[in-house]
């Protein structure tokens, strides 16, 4: 099947074909996040056990977050054979408006990083897994009203839904050039906490 071409409508019991290559990108800030190395080791081991060609970058700066995502996409697009699945794990401190903090304390918007893979032709119609281990606010559940946490920067801007922003951005592309498969399709996001809450 051409990556940009039409695909047969999946039946209710259909399963993704994972016979091609699998690639994982693990970006983890460990500075100032005690114990984060345990997560890096556990997740890295799992990815390798599941056959993912794994790239690990620890303590990326905010700029490196973006550059690594761009390079990951380029590697996938340049891959000789078919790519059947991609997994991206982002582990860092985060904020209520979908920011991720690099090791340098600078911010990057999560949706910008996620959007990078929506441009990846090799992954069109292929499953994309995003794992986010980061605070998404200062709220504790169940708990008192919002209280600033040291790991979560405050912002003067009103809270926006991360999923809403992602969908909005992706929809804009969808409207410009309708592909065979919507850009929003085939994505699994798993966040360690709900919007606005701290990650324990």
């Amino acid at each position, binding site marked *: 099947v051409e990556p940009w071409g039409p695909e047969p409508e*999946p039946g209710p*019991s*259909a*399963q*993704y074909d*994972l016979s091609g290559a699998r690639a994982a990108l693990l970006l983890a800030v460990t500075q100032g*996040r*005690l*114990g*984060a*190395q*345990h*997560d890096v080791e*556990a*997740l890295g*081991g*799992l990815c390798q*056990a*599941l*056959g993912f060609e794994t790239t690990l970058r620890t303590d990326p700066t905010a700029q490196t977050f973006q550059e690594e995502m761009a390079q990951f996409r380029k590697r996938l697009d340049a891959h000789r054979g078919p790519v059947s*699945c991609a997994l991206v*794990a982002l*582990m860092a401190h985060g904020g209520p408006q979908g920011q991720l903090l690099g090791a340098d304390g600078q911010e990057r918007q999560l949706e910008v990083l996620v959007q990078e893979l929506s441009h990846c032709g090799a992954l069109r119609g292929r*499953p994309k*897994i995003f*794992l986010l*281990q980061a605070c998404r606010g200062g709220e*504790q*559940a*169940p*708990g008192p009203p919002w209280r600033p*946490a*040291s790991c979560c920067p405050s912002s003067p801007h009103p809270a926006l839904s991360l*999923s809403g922003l992602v969908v909005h951005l992706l929809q804009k592309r969808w409207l410009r050039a309708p592909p065979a498969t*919507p850009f*929003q*399709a*085939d*994505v*699994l*996001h*798993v*966040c*360690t*906490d*709900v*919007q606005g*809450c*701290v*990650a*324990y």
Partner: protein
Amino acid sequence: RDEKGSDFIQTLVEVLRADPKADLLELMTEVNRQVCELDVLGPDCDDRRKACLEIRSSLRRRLCLQ
């Protein structure tokens, strides 16, 4: 997280290793069930808190990693 890693990542790894042939979306639901059962200490270590994952899927097929 300081001692053993985060509840989310550690539970996810444990659940996926236990049943890697199952549908990933179902496995994530199980991860969330287990994470929601855990009591965690708040930042001041004076109160017990709960965590809950957020799972969003636009998958169109079953996704089984093995």
